[in-house]
């Protein structure tokens, strides 16, 4: 008798649990939260997830007349054609080249700059410098492109005018391939170096001042303290940011390159996003451009996942 009633009540509580903690229960209890999520969810599904379906165009021979559904399936044919294009190999090379060079320079300069700023004790001096250093980050790439031509242009750029006044030859900074590459990198450093110091400075500001005091008592020089206290303290930050940047070497800003390129320099300016734009939106070859974009996105995803694994292996916070 007793046993049965226990079994029954157990059964009842189980039933109760089931009904109390079913999805409907949560939906009723937190309906306001789900209502709030509706608008963002609709926008994300429409503008971020629907385009993923469009990626099937990379496996079809898209014809405007036949439309999205009517165009023929061609399997990997588009990719085979894509890989055979000389432009494709060049775009991949340029994307990797520009991003890896950026990683070497645009990534390291902020570290040096942050180390220098950290040495400044006068707060006003530091503030004024930081305000000026952050300024380029707030200018759009169109503006930076326009300024670049006004400063570096061969015929009437300010720097070339200065060179001419000093009796030197004018340099085609933006009109010759190798020069263009160097200018592109320098402009990137110029734009991002100040802003890049913020995270390092934040990490440095949490260093215990007693460490410096102790080192000073022990007779350590400025460089010694920089090398043995400041740098080791920001090492985790450097490693995390480096790994994050490694995940992005297949990416890169379309706007930056597009506002700096010109007809005279085609060697290094054709990167993957530029080629996607040229083929797809200017040329109307939707399938091939989609395939190229998909190729880039997949490699980018693999790189991000790899970066995440490396970060976690090294004991840092992962990205995901």
């Amino acid at each position, binding site marked *: 008798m007793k046993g049965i009633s226990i079994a029954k009540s157990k059964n009842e509580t189980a039933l109760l649990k089931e009904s109390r903690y079913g*999805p409907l229960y949560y939906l009723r209890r937190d309906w306001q*939260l789900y209502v709030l999520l509706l608008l963002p969810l609709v926008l994300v599904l429409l503008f971020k997830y629907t385009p993923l379906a469009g990626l099937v165009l990379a496996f079809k021979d898209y014809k405007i007349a036949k439309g999205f559904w009517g165009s023929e399936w061609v399997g990997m044919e588009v990719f085979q054609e894509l890989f055979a294009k000389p432009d494709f190999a060049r775009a991949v090379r340029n994307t990797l080249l520009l991003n890896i060079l950026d990683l070497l320079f645009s990534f390291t300069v902020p570290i040096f700059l942050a180390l220098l700023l950290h040495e400044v004790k006068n707060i006003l001096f530091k503030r004024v410098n930081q305000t000026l250093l952050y300024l380029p980050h707030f200018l759009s790439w169109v503006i930076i492109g326009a300024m670049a031509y006004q400063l570096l242009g061969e015929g009437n750029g300010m720097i070339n005018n200065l060179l001419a006044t000093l009796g030197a030859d004018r340099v085609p900074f933006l009109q010759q391939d190798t020069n263009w590459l160097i200018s592109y990198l320098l402009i990137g450093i110029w734009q991002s170096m100040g802003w890049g110091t913020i995270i390092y400075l934040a990490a440095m500001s949490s260093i215990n001042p007693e460490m410096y005091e102790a080192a000073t008592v022990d007779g350590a020089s400025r460089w010694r303290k920089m090398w043995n206290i400041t740098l080791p303290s920001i090492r985790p930050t450097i490693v995390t940011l480096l790994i994050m940047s490694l995940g992005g070497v297949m990416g890169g800003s379309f*706007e930056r390159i597009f506002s700096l390129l010109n007809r005279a320099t085609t060697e290094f300016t054709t990167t993957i996003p530029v080629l996607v734009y040229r083929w*797809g939106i200017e040329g109307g070859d939707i399938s091939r451009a989609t395939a190229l*974009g998909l190729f880039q996105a997949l490699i980018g995803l693999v790189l991000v996942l790899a970066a995440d694994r490396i970060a976690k292996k090294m004991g840092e916070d992962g990205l995901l």
Partner: protein
Amino acid sequence: MKAVSNAPVGSKKRFDVWGFIIHAALVVVSLVCLLPYLHIVAKSFSEDAYVIANKVYLLPKGFSIEAYTKIFADASILRSLYVSVIVTVLFTILGMIVTICAAYPLSRRQLKGRSTLTFIFLFTMYFSGGIIPEYMLINNLGMLDTLWSLILPLSFSAFNLLIMKTTFTHSVPVSLEESARIDGAGHFRILWSIVLPLSKPILATLSLFYAVGRWNAYQDALFYIKHNVDLRPLQLKLYYLIVQASESFQLEATQVTLSNPEVMKAAVVVFATLPIICIYPFVQKYFVQGTMLGAVKE
């Protein structure tokens, strides 16, 4: 940010050579950031003749505001400015609403399905359809050559969501929220009366992220605003005007011949950056805070 005193205690009297070099180097690097802009400003106020003769460096030669009067007489530039203002305002409002609506539920521990929903939102940071599928979508929705193509697609930003979600999780004391719940407040009430007022700094920061990002971007406008020239935002107008130089300045009917477009170009650059330069000194600290928050993951 506290200045850390790490000067050798004993060597105060001696001239600190390296200290001087560090300060000098910083001044030089800061000037490198400022001078290009200063040159453009100088050029924009100079008289044509001096610019043609390549004589203008950092100070205007022969002061003239002719270029600016021409800009304010150019209907197409003013229209672009108007488009940019409208788009930036609407985009910022929508972006903030979307971000708040997503960040608050995702920051609540009791939300069932929280990790799945968070994944759906944040996955978009690492994989996307890319330029062409997004272009096809905008095309199929009939939004090419409309302002909606500049407002809706980018209004959700996974990066901004992450920042706001982290802030909502940490900035609002659980006890405060619980006492509100005991008093019978629902989620709408808690969000509106407790969470949002407590998160004002981050709301300011993210509004600025949205506004400045929208103001400066031109990639989507380049893709989506093709035929309806009237809807070009300012940055795209500048692209055609200056970088590509495929379009000439539309001056008043009296057909003023422009001896040298360089002054005009410089003036347009100053004109387009003026809103940013004006607010920049005041909002810089919000940007710095936001960037630091973006680096801190939950």
